[in-house]
């Protein structure tokens, strides 16, 4: 039995209108400035293993119109939490999801199965929200592209190498392709489909 009981539900935003707006602006800044780590000010208190940053993005952006796919570890309590606070339905497959939430970046779903959009509707592509262990400015991945003046370096711990391979393929599909938020603690890193990994140019 998996019934949602109000008493057991972890709280969402304290002030849904204002917190959603602030979280959205942080997400907007993160996507507009790829590689620049942004800090979320307003955090909900989701049930583990869903972290506060991933929950904040989901609460600010998801609703009845956005099917959500969840990695194995996030099914159960996380789905109940998101369903209650956002009304978002569970996607039948990862390919049918508008948002794909991944609890642990070391265990990625099949990134070739998600929706990349199509040539006339590239905006339909999914947004990934992936929890990682650590984000830090500095040597690691070198990024270029729109939103970046020159280049920017960022270190990401706790994400499978397959993610960076998928990101290189993603760039080749442009204007199709997924957009990504990497999150940990209060931090958000935006990686829109325009991001170029510097290694590609070498």
């Amino acid at each position, binding site marked *: 039995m998996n019934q949602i009981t109000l008493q057991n539900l972890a709280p969402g935003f304290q002030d849904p209108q204002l917190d*959603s*707006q602030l979280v959205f*602006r942080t997400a907007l800044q993160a996507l*507009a400035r790829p590689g620049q780590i942004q800090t979320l000010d307003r955090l909900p208190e989701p049930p583990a293993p869903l972290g506060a940053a991933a929950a904040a993005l989901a609460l*600010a952006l998801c609703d009845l119109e956005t099917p959500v796919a969840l990695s194995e570890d996030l099914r159960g309590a996380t789905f109940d939490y998101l369903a209650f606070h956002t009304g978002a339905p569970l996607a039948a497959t990862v390919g049918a999801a508008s948002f794909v939430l991944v609890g642990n970046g070391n265990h990625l779903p099949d990134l070739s199965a998600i929706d990349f959009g199509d040539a006339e509707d590239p905006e339909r592509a999914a*947004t990934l929200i992936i929890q990682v262990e650590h984000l830090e400015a500095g040597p690691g991945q070198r990024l270029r592209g*729109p939103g970046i*003046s020159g280049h920017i370096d960022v270190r990401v711990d706790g994400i499978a190498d397959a993610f960076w391979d998928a990101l290189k393929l993603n760039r080749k599909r442009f204007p199709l392709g997924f957009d990504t938020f990497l999150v940990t603690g209060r931090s958000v890193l935006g990686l*829109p489909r325009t991001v170029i990994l510097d290694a590609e140019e070498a």
Partner: protein
Amino acid sequence: MNTGGYNFAYLDEQTKRMLRRTILKAVAIPGYQVPFGDREMPMPHGWGTGGIQVTAAIIGPDDVLKVIDQGADDTTNAVSIRKFFAKTAGVATTTRTEDATIVQTRHRIPEKPLHEGQILVYQVPIPEPLRWLEPRETETRKMHALSEYGIMHVRLYEDIATHGRIATSYDYPVQVNDRYMMRPSPIPKFDNPKMDMNPALQLFGAGREKRIYAVPPYTKVKSLDFDDYPFEVQSWDQSCALCGAGDSFLDEIITSDRGDRMFVCSDSDYCQDRQAARSKEAAE
């Protein structure tokens, strides 16, 4: 916060969320017009709703809003929009470009350089750059999908054949990040170079046609041209009659019923700052 019994920034939460998702996709696909849902959006008429919808979706209580109409902060339209957001979102407003976090504009880009973290919101009447060449939406969507922009080059070349130069001086088409052709809204082509590699985020809202598009900061924006007919901006023989600026976009105004004319900055904030600096210098 007291916002006079309105929803914060007027729109309901579901509508704002839908617009916010649209804006994020627009930033991820620079220059591409993202369509948004058919939901009814009751907005005061006669303002051009596209820019207001974008501003309503992004604005928060800590923002400082500047609104310009043809470069001026004091037109009826600009004043109304500032009051609207002061009332429904409780935000502070300003006329100073450098103090604003959000600048909503109709038909100009401010003369003072924008800085990182600022957002410029354009009000867009017609979003599709190819529309006057191809009326069918199904066809223009295909052209964007295939990056087939030959008809626009033919059109500009016909301009040259007829006028000896590209005659388009407003809403001059650009290509964003070497991919999508984009309509910059009816700004003078004088402003086009400001879009290129701008540190601010640029968002474009078309209300009637329900499209949002974006140019992220530090993104290449190229005005279309030809090797033998390079892109050129407007220039004037005069300087501003009020502040002496020789580098700003000038409007010609009639100063008497005898038809006397003078040229003054279209950007009133820029002009006033320069006038203040001049009178300070004169006093010293």
